[in-house]
């Protein structure tokens, strides 16, 4: 409980120094929540299944970006493009998740570091495929995707075709009433979609499979002795996590409107993990509440820190530094607190 409170205090103090108007902050937060909630939510199942924080959602983000590159290649935009990219990313994400799950089963007890390294490793393959094979092994129809040399995808891919395609799926701006005009400014549909995913997740946890995941997460041995297929359950958990991350990344990028081909996915795992931890989750326990609170606090800090740095120290770079510091610091702190609490639970000599 202490972690979110500490961050709430930092947020309040920080926003005091930014001097930003409240309206701007609220708007900014609404956009950022709609962008990031599904990515953070994708971390829940692996935590519940006892795999810890799945840094390998980076692979899910890659699956999403692969789908986006494909639809851009065939210049399919709008709602069709969005739906197609969600659809296309799913088989990629399932395959990646399956591989990650299998590997994590071999690395029991060291899942977190393994998933992190898998993310780095996969990034290498991703670069190989899109830098060297695009335009040579895989023909690219849309030449604007390629680097001037004709080999490799450009650093920045313009996603104008699907920009806001989910955010503004319902055309409120066509209705000539002040309320709907106001509503059309906000990513209403993205929130509805996110809400749907949250509800599905809550429902999922009440099914037999969800129950099995919680059993596996709490005690692998007991689960195995009562006949639950532990390894399979863990793999399914990672697969669902990866699929959600793929969708989350597509939703994130349709809001941004451009994709940094070699950079957009790199920090996804790190920021999502930090968000969840700021919300008060631990390596062993997390729920949708922590995901929601954490995403809000973490991104609030993200918005205010450069300005707070500017106003406090006369240097925006310090705020920028502070962002990175927070992301890594939060993860470190949460892990230390967790280890410390576990240590406290052990019997000591005076208990005997």
């Amino acid at each position, binding site marked *: 409980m202490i972690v979110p409170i500490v961050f709430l205090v930092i947020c309040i103090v920080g926003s005091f120094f930014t001097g930003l108007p409240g309206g701007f902050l609220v708007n900014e937060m609404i956009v950022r929540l709609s962008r990031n909630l599904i990515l953070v939510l994708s971390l829940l199942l692996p935590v519940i299944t006892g795999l810890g924080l799945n840094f390998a959602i980076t692979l899910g983000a890659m699956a999403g970006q692969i789908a986006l590159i494909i639809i851009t290649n065939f210049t399919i935009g709008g709602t069709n493009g969005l739906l197609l990219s969600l659809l296309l990313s799913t088989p990629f994400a399932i395959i990646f998740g399956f591989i990650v799950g299998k590997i994590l089963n071999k690395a029991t007890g060291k899942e977190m570091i393994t998933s992190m390294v898998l993310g780095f490793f996969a990034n290498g393959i991703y670069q190989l495929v899109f830098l060297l094979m695009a335009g040579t092994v895989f023909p690219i129809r849309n030449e604007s995707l390629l680097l001037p040399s004709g080999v490799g995808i450009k650093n920045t891919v313009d996603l104008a075709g699907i920009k806001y395609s989910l955010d503004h799926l319902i055309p409120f701006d066509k209705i000539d009433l002040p309320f709907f005009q106001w509503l059309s400014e906000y990513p209403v549909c993205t929130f509805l979609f996110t809400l749907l995913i949250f509800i599905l997740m809550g*429902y*999922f946890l*009440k*099914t*037999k*499979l969800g*129950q*099995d995941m*919680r*059993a596996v997460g*709490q*005690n692998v*041995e*007991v*689960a195995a*002795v*009562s*006949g*639950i297929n532990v390894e399979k359950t863990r793999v399914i958990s990672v697969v669902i996590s990866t699929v959600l991350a793929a969708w989350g990344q597509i939703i994130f990028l349709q809001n941004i409107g451009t994709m940094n081909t070699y950079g957009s996915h790199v920090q996804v795992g790190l920021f999502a993990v930090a968000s969840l931890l700021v919300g008060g989750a631990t390596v062993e326990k997390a729920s949708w509440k922590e995901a929601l609170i954490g995403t809000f606090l973490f991104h609030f800090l993200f918005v205010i820190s450069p300005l707070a740095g500017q106003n406090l120290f006369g240097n925006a770079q310090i705020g920028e530094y502070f962002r990175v510091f927070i992301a890594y610091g939060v993860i470190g702190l949460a892990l230390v607190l967790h280890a410390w609490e576990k240590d406290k639970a052990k*019997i*000591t*000599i*005076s208990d*005997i």
Partner: protein
Amino acid sequence: MDLLQMKNISKNFAENRVLNDVSFSIKEGEVHGLVGENGAGKSTLMNILFGMPVIQSTGGYEGEIHINGKTFNPTSPDNAMDAGIGMVHQEFMLIPGFTITENIKLNREKTTPTFLSKIFGKRLEKLDLKSMAKDAKAALKKLDMDIDEYVPVAGLPVGYMQFIEIAREIDKTQLKLLILDEPTAVLTESEATRFLEVIKKLSNLGIAILFISHRLDEIKKITDSITIIRDGEVVKTINTDDIEINEIAGLMVGREIELSQKEKDERKIEDEDILDIKNLKVNMPGELVKGLNLTVKKGEILGIGGLAGQGKIGIANGIMGLYEASGTIIKQGKKLLLNNPKEALHSSIAFLSEDRRGVGLLLDHSIEFNIAFSSLEVQGKFLKKIGSLKLIDSKAVRKHALKMIEDLDIRCTGPKQNTRHLSGGNQQKVCIARALTLEPDLLLVSEPTRGIDIGAKNLVLDTLISLNKEFGVTIIITSSELGELRQISDRIAIIYDGKVAGILPPNASDVDFGLLMAGEDIEKVVD
């Protein structure tokens, strides 16, 4: 007809035969006791019956199992459950964060189909918590348990957890045989009494019970018949009414003592105490020592015995400072600093760990380095000074290693051979050689013959005896094998519940040892 028949069951782990031709049978509704020392083969037998994966992965078993006359060949716990066998394990198999209901119905949850389950299959059916709670309540009621089935298990008293485990087993509708592995070990006396009543009740319902326990009075009180196992063989199967507790204890422990003891008289044990342990507590997980008092005389061989988990292993580890310890240890008038292995080594105490391959040896280093490195680190032996640098004097190390290899008859290709590839007995000898290099006056030996074949066992024990005779080293030997303790010790302390239950001479009767190990009072035993 018998419900369960186990016929000529044998099992080998590698070359080690842990079960030999074991046969016994259980009738419907019978309460059958299974007793034996640690390592007698009880757990292996139960693992075979319950289809635990460890049996298959080590090559299966020989013999036949029949249930209701039909052949039964369990390859997984699922098979056993389908056949109506339930097991309550020694450690709790409960999930602390789950409610009582969720635990009782674990992986047998009631579900209702939903839209999603029609697409993605049965695992996405929704849990029917109400009907699960009803089942749980019914199972608890059979045990006369009145407790809210929505309470999480974490934080419940230990006694309740045991009942919840049993409730889970009897909730399985086809349950015919319930295996209880040391069920009362963690219970208080009143809980245990209640527990035994429940067992009677279950047996009246027609459920056969296989009851494994070290508490012989319980076995005597509750069972209809008893099978006693020793060294992987059935010693006796008998109706409970036809045997007394003393007799059970004797049969459980009894072994012929192979070595004659006449040589012992030549040695002189001095009156002086070499070690005086007062109120020692050691926090070694699974082997807690809870306020132990013990004095050791100079020049003697003191045996420490007792069942696994009672704390005998913790003593030596505590003295050496390998696990957190408190209390007072006085060695020859000087107080020993606790929790400091270096200090213990400086006080001329050496230790042969029970974890030979883990703690005892540097497996990927040569024999000669293994022999030398403790004294090199602690006492600065085998070092030559060149300027301000201290280098290992490899010539001296080699010379010493060759001498040790000859003295202790270590079978190896030479002093450069890595210890990983030595046999268990020879690895133990390397450990002994290293301990000797420290020139200790007190040697702590834990489980020196574990995992060593019989021929090498005697060699290791003979080496210990000759150390004691020729160099006057006092030895404290901790072992699960009472036989070997009786073979070489002058006195044997039996540890029960982290304290000394009593000290017996090696020629005391099997019955006395058995009773002490089962936690009976020393006064009662000596009478």
